[in-house]
């Protein structure tokens, strides 16, 4: 029995049994096309800037972004703001600082070195303002969410480099609000979402068409907003993605050449044995 044959047999057994068991009532999020996918993927600056606008005008009211600093907005591989633009954005925020020489806490304008301030002083205040549900911090949310692929698709994902389950889920979630089907018992204070596990989500539908004004002519639709803000959140979660993929390409090329040299050296050395 060869290894191939046993793997194939295993694949058949698992492939046949798994989808039937794994198929739940929550549909799989549709796959989106992402500019940051793949070995040479990069963020789309326009998308990050639009997404940032959506975050500021919609999400920020409830969701913190506490691991991201204003200086990050001007760093390479990000939304591509200039230092001056990032400083101007920072200055629009009030940061609590202190204690000063008198021992008092005080507020001042934000600086590049500050991180995004939280919308609520603490988690309990956030819960109180949101009907008991805590709006999660969005700094790494794009990596903290996923969905079950089912079957053996996860093996194929290694080769296709499909690792955007998180962003795909977020887009689906933001566009997945609809009326609860007949007979669905929706707890009060929750909202029906097709893609949310269990369907009853605390967050009300945050997006509507035309809600955020884009100045680059992009469509002002819920679908577009959802995709843009997700792109921005992916960058927030993985700010060095572009540097990683660039270095990765250099490392891969080096290693392939090195492996080739090692192979021929090895052949030469071993040729003497027989």
């Amino acid at each position, binding site marked *: 029995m060869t*290894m191939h044959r046993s793997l194939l047999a295993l694949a058949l057994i698992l492939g046949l049994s798994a989808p039937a068991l794994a198929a739940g009532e929550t549909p799989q999020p549709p796959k989106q096309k992402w500019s940051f996918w793949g070995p040479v993927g990069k963020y789309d600056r326009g998308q990050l800037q639009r997404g940032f606008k959506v975050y500021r005008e919609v999400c920020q009211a409830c969701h913190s972004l506490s691991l991201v600093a204003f200086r990050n907005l001007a760093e390479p591989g990000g939304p591509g703001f200039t230092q001056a633009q990032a400083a101007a954005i920072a200055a629009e925020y009030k940061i609590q600082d202190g204690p000063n020489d008198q021992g008092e806490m005080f507020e001042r304008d934000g600086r590049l070195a500050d991180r995004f301030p939280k919308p609520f002083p603490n988690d309990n205040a956030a819960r109180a303002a949101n009907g008991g549900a805590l709006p999660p911090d969005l*700094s790494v949310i794009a990596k903290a969410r996923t969905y079950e692929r089912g079957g053996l698709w996860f093996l194929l994902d290694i080769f296709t480099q499909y690792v955007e389950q998180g962003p795909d889920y977020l887009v689906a979630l933001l566009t997945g609000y609809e009326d609860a089907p007949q007979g669905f018992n929706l707890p009060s204070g929750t909202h029906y979402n097709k893609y949310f596990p269990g369907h009853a989500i605390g967050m009300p539908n945050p997006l509507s068409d035309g809600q955020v004004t884009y100045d680059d002519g992009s469509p002002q639709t819920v679908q577009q907003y959802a995709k843009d803000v997700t792109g921005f959140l992916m960058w927030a979660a993985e700010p060095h993605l572009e540097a990683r993929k660039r270095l*990765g*390409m250099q490392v891969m090329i080096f*290693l392939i050449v090195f492996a080739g040299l090692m192979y021929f050296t090895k052949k030469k050395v071993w040729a003497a044995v027989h």
Partner: protein
Amino acid sequence: MSGHSTYQPQNAFMKWLEARLPIAGLVHSSFIAYPTPRNLNYWWTFGGILSFMLAAQIVTGIVLVMHYTPHETMAFNSVEHIMRDVNYGWLLRYLHSNGASMFFIAVYIHMFRGMYYGSYKAPREVLWILGVIIYLLMMATGFLGYTLPWGQMSFWGATVITNFFSAIPLVGETITTWLWGGYAVGNPTLQRFFSLHYLLPFVIAGVVVLHVWALHVVGQNNPAGIEPKGDKDTVPFTPYATIKDGFAMVCFILFFAYFVFYIPNYLGHADNYIPANPAVTPAHIVPEWYYLPFYAILRAIPNKLLGVIALFASIGILVFLPWLDSSKVRSARYRPLFRQFFWIFVAVCLGLGYLGAKPAEGGYVIASQILTFYYFAHFLIILPLLSRFEKTKPLPNSISESVLKQGVPIGASAPAPTRH
């Protein structure tokens, strides 16, 4: 590390040193003149790869510790600080987290290779048992390390695993409280796990020295499974094994780099990017992939204590492998039936791994129970019976004869072990 050294010091200083501390002679006899069977295939390169992975994990780990804070309120954010603010911190962290997985991929290949070619048989029983000890230490180290980012899976994984000990009758609760340093997984747990995670790799390094020592006393097994009978059957470690191991290592690093640079979170779990929260239990608590077969065995058994015993027995049984399989023929090449059962066993382990990732319900549990039974049956029923009743093929007279019969020049692409 064995036999007397053929090393001849070349200059006055080396002669002086050799007379006082024969370290150069030790290195020479272990890594230069050491005779290796000439028929080793690429499955034999994983020992070197594992040494490299251990070193890589220690080096990246030491640098990560310079930036990491082992405290329940700061650990998660300090990992994010490494990812965002430390120069090439993302690279260090992804190398280390993926490195753990690569370490386990290499060790599983290394172990299955040992099983296929009967490398655990006399006189290599101690070598094999030392390997099982290294594997156990690796599992402990990996588990402790996964706790450190203090995400949801870190916290709940630690809770589930430490709860195993509460299954022990009478003293279980006391032991878990002692392990936790409190009445639940918390800051004292994180701090002691961090301390032990830093300690154990050096313990592993110590046992690796014993493993290599034992290897150099008994010599390497080989695909033919017969002992070398002189210089015709062996080649010196350097340059032959060094260059071959080097080539395989570069290929393995290429595979490793693919994960680090392109899919660095593929082998992790999304929930571990959610900060640990004792008040919220994740929908599915799943350990790292390399524990999944054992996790499936644990959950296959409805009784908690028996499940934990089965879990530990499934690893402990490896210690007894040299005596459970008493066939005089080592290599699966000359054991046609064993070869088939070996591949079924590999498939069963993969199947258990798949089931370990699935929720413990319905058909999954039944499948886990069947595969768990088979796992133990392989060791306790199939191997003892095979060693008694299997009709083995005739062994070649020598390694060089087996090489010539294959008709593949040494050093050209090594034949896959099953292809003939």
